[in-house]
Every structure is written in C-alpha cells, then in structure tokens.
C-alpha cells in the first residue's frame, strides 16, 4: 500500500520543519528580550521631561542596536526557507521592534549627520529596512524582509504610545509636545484613511486610531480652554 521510502521521506521532512521552528524560536527568544528591554526603557519617556531625553534615548539606542543584531541573525536564518511559511512566528516581534525604532526616531533619537535628531521625524518603511539592514516589501525573490503590514501595525502601536505621551507631557509641563503629537496623529489618521482595508487585523488596528485621536484632541481642547497652548503652534 505505502512505499516505505515515502514514510521515511515525509518523516524526515517533518522533523526538519520542527528543527527549523526550534531554531527560530531561539532567535525570537533573544529578539523578544531585546525588544522588551527597549520598550521598557522607552516607557520612561512618560515620566521624563523633554530636556532629559538625550541620555534616555541613548539607552534606547543601545537596545535598538541589539535588536538590529538579532534581526540580522533572524534574516540570515529565515532567508534559507520560504518566507511566508514561517513569518507568522516573528510578525508580532518584528512589529514591536519596528515600533521601538519609530518611536525612538520620532522623539529625536537615531540621528545621523544627514538627519539631525529632532522631535517629529517619521521613519518610512524604507528607513526601517535600511536601519535593520534587511529588504522591505520583497516581491521578486524569497527572502527575509519587512512587510508593509508589519510597518503599519508597528506605526499604529506608536500612535497609541504617543497619545499617552500627550497626556503625560502636559503633566510634565510640556504643552507644546501635546500639540505637536496632536497634529502628527491627525495627519497619520488621515493617511490611514487612504488605505483600502480588508476585514483583517490591520483594519481592526486602524479602526482603533480614532480613539488615540480623540484622546489627544481632548488634551488639546483642555489646553486651549485654559489658554495654555504656546503661541507659535496655536491651532
């Protein structure tokens, strides 16, 4: 009925698949550790006044350096296998890594000679790819890359985080920050409206942006009511 060779062949293929997954899990464990640390450091922006960002961002950049190194390892290993066979394993983690990088750069970190660090810089998908040293939105060959969905989902995480920062920056007396965040989030919200979304995770997350917009608008409303908005940025 069944050729014994067939059994052996399938068995070894399944075993190979299992060992690939195991290896991936190990790399992803490392990545998880670095991403969690970086996220943890970043969470301190909510209690740090803008004048003290520099040392904090320096620490974040240290975490990002580890992320870059681990994603490099992931890329090298995963590129040996069909990308979409395993990409569900790292999607979440890569998204989170992207979030840390976007947020760090937006706060003025990750600067270079050509791009001075200033608050409000948005890294594009291409910037992210360049930073991590991996291709983005690959279509012509099968290798590790960062997908559009990962970038957009990572960006939405940053929006959530910034809406929180708007509240906390006001507490710290930095009302200009709240106003800047409001403008940024509104622009991104409008940007996301341009997308034609299907009924999937991306759509669900995009739908949540409006709550961040509302949260920040409420903050700005409170400020304007009390004439607390600094003059140049007013409305």
């Amino acid at each position, binding site marked *: *009925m*069944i*050729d014994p*060779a*067939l*059994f052996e*062949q*399938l*068995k070894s*293929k*399944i*075993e190979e*698949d*299992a060992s690939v*997954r195991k290896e991936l899990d190990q790399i992803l464990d490392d990545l998880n550790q670095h991403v969690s640390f970086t996220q943890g450091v970043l969470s301190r922006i909510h209690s740090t006044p803008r004048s003290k960002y520099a040392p904090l961002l320096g620490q974040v950049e240290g975490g990002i350096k580890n992320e870059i190194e681990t994603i490099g390892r992931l890329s090298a290993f995963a590129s040996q296998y*069909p*990308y*979409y*066979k395993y990409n569900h394993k790292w999607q979440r983690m890569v998204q989170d890594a992207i979030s840390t990088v976007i947020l760090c750069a937006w706060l003025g970190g990750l600067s270079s000679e050509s791009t001075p660090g200033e608050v409000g810089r*948005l890294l*594009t*998908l291409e910037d992210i790819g360049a930073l991590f040293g991996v291709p983005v*939105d*690959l*279509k*012509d*060959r*099968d*290798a590790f890359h960062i997908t*559009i*969905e990962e*970038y*957009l989902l990572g960006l939405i995480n940053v929006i959530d985080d910034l809406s929180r920062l708007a509240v906390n920056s006001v507490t710290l007396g930095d009302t200009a920050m709240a106003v800047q965040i409001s403008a940024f989030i509104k*622009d*991104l919200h*409008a*940007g*996301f*409206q*341009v*997308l*034609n*979304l*299907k009924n999937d995770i991306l759509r669900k997350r995009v*739908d949540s942006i*409006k*709550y961040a*917009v*509302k949260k920040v608008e409420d903050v700005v409303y409170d400020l304007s009511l009390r004439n607390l908005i600094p003059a140049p940025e007013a409305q």
Partner: protein
Amino acid sequence: MSGFKRDWSGNAKKRDGPKPAQKAVARNAYTPMFETLRDELDQHHDRRERLVKASRDITALSKKIIFSLQRVRKIESQLPANIQAEIDSRLTEIAKLLAVIAPEIQGINRYRYSRSLMCLEELVEALTFAHYLRTQTLVSQDELAPIVEDLSRQGATTEDAVMADAGDSAENRPRPAKTEPPTVSLTQEDYLYGVFDLTGEMMRFATTSTALTGAMASGSAAGDGEDEPRSIVQDMHHLGSFFEMLPVGKGNRLAWERKLEVTRQSVQKVEKLGYDRTIRGSERPKGWIPDLSAGDQGPPDEE
C-alpha cells in the same frame, strides 16, 4: 455588531464608498507615503481575491471527481469508462484554472497564499483516491507533484488553443513565444492533508462497495503476487499506522490532530466492516446480494 463603524463623534463612517470630498482634498506630508503603501496592499488583496475564487472552483470540481469515484465498485487497474470520462472532463476544467493561478503563486507568493489555496488539498484527495482505486497504493508526493504540474501546463496550452479557435485566422496567427508556463507546486501540507482526507473517502468506498457487492474491496489476486489479495481493511490499517507514526506536523498542530482523529474513526469503521463480513458474511444467502452489474463478478469469495 452594527454594520458600520462610527467615528468618535458618533457619525457613521463609510469606508468602502467614495471618500467625502473634504477628506480627499486634505493632504498632508504623509499622504504620498500612504498612497504608495495602499497601491501595494491593493495588489496583494486583489491577487488573493482572484486566488480564492479560483480555489473555490477547483475545490468544487475536485469534489465532483470524488463523487464520480465513489460510484466505482471495485479496485481495478482501469476505471469504468463512463467514470473515467467524467473525471477527465473535470480535470480539463481544473487544468485551466490551475494555469490561471499558476503565475500568481510563484516563488515567494507560494506560501503567502497557502491559506487561500485549500483547493490543492482537495485536488490531492481526488488524485490520490483515483490512484488508489486503480492501483491500490498510495501515490507519493514526488509522483503526484509532476501530475499537478502537467495539469497546469495542459491548462495553459488548451487556453491557447481555445483562443486560437476563436479567431478566424487561427492557423496563421503567430503562436506566443514558447516559454515554459509557470506551474502549480504542491507543498508538503497540501499533500499530507489531502492524504488525511483520502482515508475518509476510502472508508466511504469500502462501505458502499461492501454493501453493494457483498465483498470487501480488495486488489485482484494477480496484481500483488501474494497468496491472498490485500483487502481495504489492511490498507486502512496501514494508512492509519502511517499517520500515527509520523511526527505531528508542527505548523498546525490543531488541524493535524483533528484530521488524525477523523482518520482513526475511519479506520475503525472499516475494521468493523471487515469484522461484519467475516462473521456474518457466510450467513447470507448467495442470491441475496443486490446485483449491480458494475462490480459483480461471480459469487463473492468467502474467507
């Protein structure tokens, strides 16, 4: 849940319809970036939609092949002519669909759309079942893959032929450049899950053929060179153990275990059938068996 989303001020939001003019005009620094990403995402969504549509058709056709095969009454090297004809016509249709989807699922896109291509499992099921009924063996993935590739190639050529027929100047129209058309490849998952489903079809086949011919389906004695022809009960046992011994596929453990459970049940149903045949088969008067000429070749042999 209501059918539409509201924005935070409570106004209904329309997503799919045309955008309100005011929003369409409001551009900002990030609009171009989002427009580029939108175009990329649209390509992906459109492709997936096309694949899902074709996949549904291929699944339906494969199921029809399986129904035709379930009208076979015994295992023999040649399927009854009428059934073979039905299958061939379905396969021609499938081939055309495969040729259409083949270019979409090359390289990196093969696994990207795996989940939209459940039809391949169904096709594997139909093809392995046909193969079993002809040869009483399980076709391997290496043997099956070229068959599916051939199908997609055939589909590509018949499509050309149809187009050529349509035009009046069919003969002198230059043929398109002879480049190898892309083919549909099978993944290991397509194959394994298809074979899982095969056990269900074998169970149904064993049940109907035993009920209608009065004998357990088995190979022709000459075919195997063994003393007694192997019966489908043994084949089911063999296949059941085959899956039990394989390491659990890590990719989708849940689906794997569900399929394995169904396989176990199928094996046991056929076992029961074999037992019934052994214990009660001899009590049946010979003439009792309903005569359905397709499969009847003299009195059923008693064990």
